[in-house]
């Protein structure tokens, strides 16, 4: 690991100013991803600004019936919160399906959103990677493709976003609050992460120095049931090949509302708006669910090594929706 300086920030504005002024500075929260990337020398900051005490570590009720989650809330606390378990089960399940008990105790809400891809080439500095070194090329194009994207990828990058939590938050219409050099701003979770396009080195739309301060959840619809289903290469403690966060509301045998997001398929949590539009008003049946999944995945462009993810995504979407339908009965 390269040498670095360490400072603890006392004020958000000072931390933001430091990051804007010093291109070699980086924020440190739980460190569960950053410390490993520094050890691998994938990132080499010269100054770490510890921001864990700058943002709230509490989960608070909002006047509209939603919840505000401070950026420093550990993943384990968020997953165990009785309000989250009762009102947003998909979020609790997504968190519990990710990482391990030890990691969830250290990892924070803000850090979870900003974790980097686990693409093996991104993490190996001896290989070519456009996300790490723009213009270097993408080793995955002729290499290991099992974990790579099937939706929204570009010729420069086929990496996937690793977070489970973010997939649930995408389905829940969460909003991220951000402090920056100018004023605070609010970003819809589905618009926080970006597709790789020609500049895959940028994971998110955040500007230099911007700091996530919290995540807001809109009030849950009383009739909306939600759950998270994750498919991976081992039973626990592995990243998703495919995951589905879904919420479903059924009235008189028809789909009144559906929210679906996919993990393991793209450079960002993939909100399945095409599937949702197909489902709205349709009969709540297996056939409708298959049609909706097919409509969403018609845009899929798999690589030779991950073509299996298209039917796997379809089947996981259908299975999750059928489970929710069963629950509603």
């Amino acid at each position: 690991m390269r040498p670095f300086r360490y400072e603890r920030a006392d004020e958000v504005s000072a931390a933001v100013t430091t990051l804007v002024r010093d291109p070699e500075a980086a924020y440190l929260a739980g460190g569960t991803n950053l410390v490993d990337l520094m050890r691998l020398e994938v990132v080499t900051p010269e100054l770490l600004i510890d921001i864990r005490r700058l943002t709230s570590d509490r989960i608070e009720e909002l006047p509209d019936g939603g919840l505000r989650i401070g950026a420093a809330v550990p993943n384990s606390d968020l997953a165990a919160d009785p309000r989250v378990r009762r009102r947003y089960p998909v979020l609790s399940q997504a968190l519990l399906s990710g990482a391990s008990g030890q990691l969830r105790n250290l990892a924070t809400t803000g850090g979870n959103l900003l974790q980097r891809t686990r693409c093996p080439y991104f993490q190996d500095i001896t290989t070519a990677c456009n996300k790490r070194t723009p213009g270097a090329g993408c080793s995955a194009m002729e290499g290991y493709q099992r974990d790579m994207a099937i939706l929204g990828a570009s010729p420069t990058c086929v990496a996937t976003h690793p977070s489970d939590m973010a997939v649930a938050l995408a389905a829940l219409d969460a909003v991220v609050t951000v402090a920056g050099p100018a004023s605070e701003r609010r970003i819809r979770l589905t618009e926080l992460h970006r597709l790789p396009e020609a500049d895959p080195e940028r994971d998110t739309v955040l500007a230099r120095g911007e700091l996530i301060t919290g995540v807001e959840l809109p009030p849950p619809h009383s009739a909306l049931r939600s759950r998270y289903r994750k498919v991976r290469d081992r039973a626990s403690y592995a990243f998703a090949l495919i995951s589905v966060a879904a919420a479903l509301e059924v009235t008189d045998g028809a789909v009144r509302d559906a929210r679906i997001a996919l993990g393991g398929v793209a450079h960002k949590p993939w909100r399945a708006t095409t599937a949702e539009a197909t489902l709205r008003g349709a009969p709540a049946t297996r056939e409708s669910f298959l049609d909706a999944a097919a409509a969403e995945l018609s845009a899929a462009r798999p690589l030779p090594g991950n073509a299996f993810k298209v039917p796997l995504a379809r089947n996981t979407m259908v299975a999750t929706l059928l489970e929710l339908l069963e629950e509603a009965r």
Partner: protein
Amino acid sequence: MDLEIELRVDGTEHRLTVDTRTTLLDALREQLGNTSPKKGCDHGQCGACTLLLDGRRVLGCLAPAVAHQGADIVTAAGLADGELHPLQQSFIAHDAFQCGYCTPGQIVSAAGMLQEAGAGWPSAAAKDLGATDVVLDDEEIAERMSGNLCRCAAYANIVPAIAEVAHR
């Protein structure tokens, strides 16, 4: 860059100077001579370095020591209080190891896990996410301990060793 920090390790206060790159794991093993936590992968993937940090199980290899100034740390060695901790006794009784390298991490992780379950925290194996009483069946124990790998694959004895303590 060197910084001076204080750590309480297994009940004893220490003041030490660490490079900012030093993890809690390395501070314990290399500077304080506490080799109970083991360095397995050093990438947060194996659990051999599991510590209790202010009462919660974490991975020592991913925790910069300078970020945990004043922390209260318990290792597997510190769990024993005059006599062996019930988990340590149970691991011996069930022969829950072969080479033993992952064992301190397994035991500290199990201690943290039992507290989490006692506090009603759910796991991915929960059949009822809203349940406040956690029943630690084998599936629950395996899921909650999935961050601790055993390359000898002594899981068949580790799960019963933890279950016996959990069900007391």
